């Protein structure tokens, strides 16, 4: 089942002097199994969209539908048990390692499944699977999460969400603060999870990452969708007007154009594909 946003408006502190509209009529459908990037400046509505998805927020008007769950402004339509939605949609917040709190890695990761009614054994088994899946080995099970490196802690935090076996994974700036190798590993992990059928919604400022990873790109501005399409269509967009950086490979394609070599951006995603395109153009 797809995810549907139907004429969604969201206003923070509605009716108070601090009232501010975060979403101004979002309507879109996200197909299951897709890898979608949500981008836009700080305050454009990205995080609000993500939080509506697992009912941390309720729309001011309109509705968000995920499978049988309806998160609607209309109380009569709204599903009663939205807790199930939290299991279906896993939200990985920015710097999730700050939320680790138990004394061993396995206990921390097992916390989610236990909370959703799994027995102790079941929860531990799911935790072990998730820890292995993010690329940590069994020696990590009983270590303290606080003695790990930044990259390892991030993996533990992501494992904590994966252990709940969500159908949709929402990642808010998942590679911020990681070194290049850890970022690449994280990206490979997200691709692997996506390849198994999990829908991924990536919220990021890192346009290089977005271009490399996502199959669909949604640009938000003032709570509205202003662009929606294939990431390579980014090339035609003046990203700086949305406070976004141009991906480095596209910046270089522009530079080549100024020097008289025109490349089609459609297959260029990373340094390797850019090098191939240059080679072909020169032959």
């Amino acid at each position, binding site marked *: 089942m797809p995810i549907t946003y139907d004429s969604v408006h969201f206003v923070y502190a509605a009716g108070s002097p601090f009232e501010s509209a975060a979403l101004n009529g979002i309507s879109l459908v996200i197909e299951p199994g897709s890898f979608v990037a949500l981008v836009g400046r700080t305050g454009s509505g990205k995080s609000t969209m993500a939080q509506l998805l697992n009912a941390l927020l309720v729309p001011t008007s309109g509705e968000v539908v995920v499978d049988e769950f309806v998160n609607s402004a209309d109380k009569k339509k709204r599903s009663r048990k939205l807790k199930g939605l939290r299991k279906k949609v896993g939200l990985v917040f920015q710097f999730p390692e700050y939320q680790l709190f138990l004394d061993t890695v396995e206990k921390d990761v097992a916390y989610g499944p236990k909370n959703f009614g799994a027995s102790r054994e079941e929860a531990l088994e799911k935790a072990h699977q998730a820890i292995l899946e993010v690329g940590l080995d069994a020696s990590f099970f009983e270590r303290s999460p606080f003695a790990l490196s930044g990259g390892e802690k991030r993996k533990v935090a992501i494992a904590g969400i994966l252990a709940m076996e969500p159908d949709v994974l929402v990642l808010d700036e998942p590679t911020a603060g990681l070194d*290049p*190798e850890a970022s690449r590993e994280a990206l490979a992990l997200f691709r692997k999870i996506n390849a198994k059928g999990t829908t991924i919604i990536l919220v990021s400022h*890192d346009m290089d990452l977005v271009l490399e990873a996502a199959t669909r790109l949604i640009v938000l501005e003032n709570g509205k969708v202003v662009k929606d399409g294939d990431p390579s269509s980014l090339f035609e967009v003046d990203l700086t007007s949305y406070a976004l950086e141009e991906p480095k490979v596209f910046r270089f394609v522009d530079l080549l154009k100024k*020097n008289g070599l025109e490349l089609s951006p459609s297959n260029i995603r990373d*340094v390797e594909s850019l*090098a*191939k395109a240059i080679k072909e153009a020169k032959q």
Partner: protein
Amino acid sequence: MKALEVKGLSFSYSGDDSEVVHDLSFSIEEGEYVSLIGHNGSGKSTLAKLVSGLLGFSYRGEISVFGTVLDKKSVRAARRDIGLVFQNPDNQFVGSTVEEDIAFGLENREVPREKMQAIIDEYSEEVGMRDFLKKSPEGLSGGQKQRVAIAGVLAMEPRLLILDEATSMLDPSGKSEILSLIHRLKDKNASLSILSITHDVEEAAKSDRVIVLNAGRKMMEGTPKEVFARSEELASIHLDAPFAYRLASALRAEGIEVPSDIVDEESLARWICR
């Protein structure tokens, strides 16, 4: 004059046998902008704390700041020459407004009130935050908070500025705000020495000299050009080279022999289109 000199430094946290920093020697000349790069866990941040005397003196080797060897007695005076900016903009905001935050260090030094306002005005102007003096931190972006932190540090007139991953938690626009501020400061004050601890190689490429740290040891040292030309060695310790270097090696892998002296994007584009 050397702003910082580190000789044969080895350190391990108490209760732990493994050395986080191992037999490390390097120095920074006055007025030099040096980047120290390394992956997560390479010992970079420990080093920043050691040279500012924050981890005590139970290390082997010697650290000198502007010619003074650090020890229990000298550290207070030496710390006056050092300004430290940390990674997390939220953890270092101590005032309830921008103005109070910048004033914090000055109050500790018992700067008289009438002088203080002039200093606050000057440095908030310098970092482009003068219009925000009465604002509380909640309404500021990460980049703005980090600029306030830098203003607070600059107000103490340090001769050596140490940036410990100061941009790593910021979004791209916050990052470029800070980087252009650093370059502006350097242009204005040629004798300001900077040690920037970072894993942002694009930033390091713009400094005077780069030191690469791996597992607490110095692995390379040189100009950005010298260091980033060794991209395979960098990759072996989980570091990327800047974009132009990465593209040049991807082109070589495709059989296009890019000359090794081409290290910036402009000249690489011109060479490709020649």
